[in-house]
């Protein structure tokens, strides 16, 4: 080894130098806030500290206090359930729409795509406002339709008043807003499946279900995994939709998800330390939930 000329052992420097700018941006934009959060989560940091009192280091006391509350675990369980249900329903609906687009004539496909893009382009606050109006207990069209259809008990039914129906409305919004991305991504993936393979399968007498299960899905699996992973991450971080719905009158404590819980701790109760502690917990949770997918993606990339 020592006989090798020195210059061959020297690693090339330019690739690292090229990486440097983006690394600096990442550290400045992500590293600083996370570092601040880690430090703050181990201090007593409230409104008084915000106004200049020196923060006191308390070690893991904030974590112990937060994790010993039933309230946090209720929020965690609710958030995970909400995230998984929404992510899987979104991907299933998106897949169904992508397959539909593959099957229909071009003109109808364009109509579907335009509709999807419009739904996706709707600003979130506007979308939530529209849903609030749709489900309004006094003048909402949903109650009107249900009552007209003979379901008298929906006259004046307050959808946002009980957690279950609240999350039904919340899920409708979240799914409605995220299906377009999934549908269009999967459709793009489906167009990459060579037509010859499908024709060959048809000649062999494969049923449409068999073609879907054995040819189409395996071939779009990379796209499917990525959109599912993204949906899980996004749906775990959902905040504004819930907050805006709560503003229309809802049982707040029973409908808080993790994002809302952190906001309540930080912005409303001014307990920035506890808010930081829960934020870091959510970061860990996100990594944990998405790790299996990231790993399988990495493995696929290696292959």
């Amino acid at each position, binding site marked *: 080894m020592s006989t090798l000329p020195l210059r061959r052992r020297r690693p090339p420097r330019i690739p690292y130098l090229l990486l440097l700018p983006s690394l*600096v941006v990442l550290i400045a934009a992500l590293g600083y806030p996370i570092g601040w959060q880690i430090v703050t989560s181990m201090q007593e940091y409230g*409104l*008084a500290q915000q106004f200049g009192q020196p923060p006191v280091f308390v070690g893991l006391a904030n974590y112990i206090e937060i994790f010993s509350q039933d309230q946090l675990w209720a929020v965690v369980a609710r958030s995970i359930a909400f995230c998984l249900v929404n992510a899987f329903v979104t991907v299933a609906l998106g897949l169904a729409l992508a397959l539909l687009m593959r099957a229909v004539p071009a003109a109808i496909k364009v109509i579907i795509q335009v509709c999807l893009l419009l739904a996706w382009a709707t600003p979130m606050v506007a979308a939530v406002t529209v849903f609030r109006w749709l489900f309004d207990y006094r003048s909402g069209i949903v109650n009107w339709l249900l009552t007209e259809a003979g379901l008298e008990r929906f006259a004046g039914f307050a959808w*946002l*008043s009980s957690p279950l129906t609240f999350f039904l409305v919340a899920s409708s919004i979240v799914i409605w807003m995220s299906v377009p991305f999934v549908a269009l991504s999967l459709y793009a993936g489906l167009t990459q499946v060579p037509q010859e393979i499908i024709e060959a399968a048809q000649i062999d007498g494969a049923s449409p279900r068999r073609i879907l299960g054995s040819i189409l899905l395996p071939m779009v699996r990379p796209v499917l995994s990525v959109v599912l992973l993204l949906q899980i991450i996004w749906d775990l971080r959902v905040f504004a939709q819930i907050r805006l719905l709560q503003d229309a009158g809802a*049982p707040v404590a029973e409908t808080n998800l993790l994002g809302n819980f952190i906001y309540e701790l930080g912005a409303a*109760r001014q307990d920035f330390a506890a808010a930081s502690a829960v934020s870091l917990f959510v970061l860990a949770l996100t990594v944990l939930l998405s790790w299996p997918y990231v790993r399988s993606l990495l493995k696929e990339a290696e292959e």
Partner: protein
Amino acid sequence: MKRRLPAVLAASLALGLAACSSPTDAETSATATGAPGSSAPAEGGDITMWVAGGDTPEALRQYLVDTFAEENPGSTLTIEEQAWPDLVSKLTTALPDAANTPDVVELGNTQTPTFATVGAFLDLTDMYDELGGDNLLQSFVDVGTVDGQIYAVPYYFGSRYVFYRPDIWADNGVEVPTTLAEFTEATEALTTDDMSGFAMGGQDWRNGISWVFANGGELATVDGTTWTSTLSDPNTIKGLEMWQEVVMGASNLPTTERDVAYWDFLNDGADGAAPDAATIMAPGWARWSIGDLTTNDDGDEVRDGMADASKYDIFALPGVDGGVAPVFAGGSNLAISAASQQPELSKALLRIIFSEEYQRMLGENGLGPANSMYTDSLGDDKFATTMIETAEASKLTPAAPGWAAIEGAFVYEELFQKIAEGGDVAALAAEYDETLTPMLNG
């Protein structure tokens, strides 16, 4: 390659920093001109005032800007409006930041103790007498007082009373009540499947606590500096139970409603259809959203402000034994940021606000002036007299340091919702006392 690198680095560093720091507005340059160092206070400077919501009318804002410019040559006042729901978080981030802090801020009276106790505001004790002294609304002064020092002064007060439909009440043979129990009876009698006798959202504790106060109850008491939630006090429980009775018996609204535009319920429906409620409770300015439709000078369709007294009228919420029930006093305080770079100019602005002329302008616009010497500027019609009558009997929420946190976490909303759903009041009171006492103390 090597020669170019620093430029790339610098550029990306700048990008990274730009992503990090978030200058709230262009005030930075303005404050810089009037930064310390400029020793003579007469030197020109710029100050910013935050008003909360649209309560301060445009004409009053213009008056402040013009008068300030006139009295302080070379200096300017900028008024920025902040939305009520964002106010606490904006104050939390802006006030400690000397480069971006507003100089004078308006904030809700219930939010004042939270900031006054952490030293966010400038001590105004030495100019208290000059601003009006004991003539200022004392309950509002109290929420801004910490250890005998005054950090916030009243801006304006509002009050709330009952708006009702005399035509519907008369059709049902129901008369204006003189006691709180009669009020429950009357509004229950008016209630049908399609119309609330008294529209009241289940989470609406700001109106609901009037029933607590009327029964001599309190939400919390203080012993020295330690606050205790007193929901389990017999008087408080009596009040909560009375409220439960009227909400369950006379209101068809969902128990989760909180910020309800009640006035919509009192107006006739489309094409003269019957209203959704025969009675509501609201702040005095709700008057301008009530009445029959008419057209204003700009050709817009507006409510006529209850012109037809046989159709729309008001009364003060009656007390338990007659008289007037103490209601929750709405209103705002004013304070100067402790981090303000222009304390002298900020004080000059306060002097303008507390001048007789401006105080009277507040009254003429239906806002209760901070200085009780000018209360007569509100006028002498029934709206003004009822407002003054109810405001005199009104009460504030506890001036506890943790109050803003409790409001932010919707704790009372939750409690009142459970009561409105028919929960056992004594058990709920005991449960929420335990939650609230540590929160009150911050």
